[in-house]
C-alpha cells in the first residue's frame, strides 16, 4: 500500500485499515513501521483512560486504575495487562483505543450537548474501528446510538454520524471490488455467515470462562488420541489474581447511584464484548499461547475499573465502620443534670 499496490485476494483476509496505518508508519520509521502507530495508539489510550478515571474517581484512584490496567513489566507473555497488546502489531489495538475513547466520552461528555467536533471524532474513530475489525460493528452501533440518545442529539446530527461511520467502510468495499470484483466477499476462505456461526455458543462460553478466565489447567485436549497439549500460558485470573475483586466493583457501578449513567452503559457494552468473544471459536485454553486474551483486552478497562472501585468503596466503608466503632467505644459524658 505504501508503494501504491493493492493487496492480493489472500491478503484481504485482513481488512485494509491496519495496513493503511502501517503504510503511514513507513513514512515515519521505514525500518519498523508499526512502532510509531502502536505508540501513538497507546499514548492516546493512556490519556483517554486517565482523564475519564480522574473525573470519575479522583487522581489517586485513577493512578491505581491506570497502574493495574497499563503499567506492566515489559514482557508480553500473558496479556493480562492491556498494554501488552501494544508491544506487538495487532489490529486489536484499534479496538482498545476506540474503547478508551468511548470510556472518556461516556464519562466526560454525557451531560452536555455534543459539539460537532466530538460527533465527527466519534464517527471517524468508530468508522475506522469498524474498518479494522468488522465484527466491532456489533458494539459500535449500540454504543454510538446510546450516546446520541442519552445526549439527546438531533436526528439530523445522528444521521450524519452514522453516514460517516458507513462512509469509512466504503473504502474496504471499494478495495474488495477492485481485488475480488465483488463488494460482498469477505476476502476470507469462509463466508460471513459461516464465520458468525462460530460465535454466541453457550458451550464455548462455559469452556472459555473456565479455561481462559479462571485457570488454564482446566484445558483438555479434545483430541483424546493425542497426549494433552499444555496450555503453556496462565489464564487471566491466574496471571492477575487481583481481578477476582473486579466483579464486586462492576456490581457497585450498577447499584450505587453516584456512578453515572454513561459508565453503566459503557460497562454493559464492555461486558457484552467480552461475552461475545468468550462464546466464540477464536478463544480457548490452548490458544492462550497465541495471546488469545487480546480479543477481550478492551474489556480490561471495565475490569480494572471494577477493581479500583472495589478497593475505593471498601476503604470508604471500612473508614465509616471504624468511625462508628470508635464513637461507640468512646466513654459517654455523664449527664450533669442527673447529678
Amino acid at each position, binding site marked *: 500500500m505504501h508503494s501504491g499496490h493493492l493487496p492480493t485476494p489472500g491478503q484481504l483476509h485482513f481488512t485494509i485499515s491496519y495496513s493503511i496505518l502501517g503504510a503511514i508508519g513507513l513514512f515515519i520509521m521505514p525500518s519498523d513501521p508499526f512502532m510509531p502507530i502502536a505508540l501513538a495508539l497507546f499514548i492516546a489510550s493512556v490519556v483517554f483512560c486517565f482523564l475519564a478515571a480522574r473525573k470519575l474517581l479522583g487522581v489517586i484512584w485513577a493512578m491505581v486504575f491506570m497502574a493495574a490496567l497499563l503499567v506492566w513489566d515489559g514482557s508480553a507473555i500473558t496479556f493480562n495487562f492491556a498494554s501488552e497488546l501494544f*508491544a506487538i502489531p495487532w489490529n486489536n489495538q484499534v479496538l482498545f483505543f476506540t474503547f478508551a475513547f468511548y470510556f472518556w466520552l461516556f464519562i466526560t461528555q454525557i451531560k452536555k450537548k455534543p459539539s460537532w467536533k466530538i460527533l465527527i471524532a466519534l464517527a471517524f474513530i468508530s468508522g475506522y474501528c469498524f474498518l479494522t475489525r468488522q465484527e466491532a460493528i456489533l458494539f459500535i452501533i449500540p454504543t454510538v446510538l446510546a450516546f446520541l440518545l442519552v445526549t439527546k442529539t438531533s436526528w439530523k446530527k445522528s444521521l450524519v454520524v452514522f453516514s460517516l461511520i458507513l462512509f469509512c467502510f466504503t473504502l474496504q468495499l471499494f478495495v474488495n471490488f477492485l481485488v475480488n470484483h465483488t463488494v460482498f466477499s469477505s476476502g476470507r476462505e469462509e463466508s460471513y455467515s459461516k464465520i458468525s456461526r462460530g460465535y454466541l455458543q453457550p458451550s464455548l462460553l462455559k469452556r472459555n470462562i473456565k479455561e481462559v478466565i479462571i485457570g488454564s489447567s482446566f484445558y483438555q485436549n479434545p483430541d483424546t488420541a493425542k497426549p494433552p497439549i499444555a496450555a503453556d500460558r496462565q489464564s487471566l485470573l491466574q496471571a492477575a489474581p487481583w481481578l477476582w475483586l473486579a466483579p464486586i466493583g462492576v456490581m457497585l457501578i450498577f447499584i450505587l447511584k453516584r456512578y453515572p449513567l454513561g459508565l453503566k452503559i459503557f460497562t454493559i457494552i464492555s461486558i457484552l464484548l467480552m461475552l461475545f468473544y468468550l462464546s466464540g471459536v477464536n478463544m480457548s485454553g490452548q490458544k492462550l499461547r497465541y495471546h488469545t486474551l487480546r480479543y477481550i483486552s478492551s474489556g480490561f478497562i471495565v475490569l480494572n475499573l471494577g477493581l479500583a472501585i472495589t478497593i475505593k468503596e471498601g476503604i470508604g466503608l471500612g473508614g465509616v465502620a471504624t468511625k462508628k466503632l470508635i464513637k461507640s467505644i468512646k466513654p459517654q459524658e455523664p449527664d450533669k443534670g442527673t447529678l
Partner: protein
Amino acid sequence: MSSFIITMGVLHANIVLVMKQEKLKRLLATSFKKENVKRWLPLVVLLVLAIGSFIYGWYFDMSKPHSGIGWAD
C-alpha cells in the same frame, strides 16, 4: 519522500512558532502555575512509565512472538 515530509513539517512548525510567539509565551507562563503542575503531573508520570514500558516491551522483550503483519489478526 520521508525527508521531504519531515522538512516540510519542521518548516511549518517554525512558521507557526513565529506567528504564535506571543500566544506561546502566555501559554508557557500559565502552564507552570502550581495548580496546573499539580493537575497534570500524575498524567506526565504515568506517560513516562507507560512509554518506558512500551519501549522495553517493543525492543527488548524476547519472550513475545515475532512482530509483523502476520500477527495482526
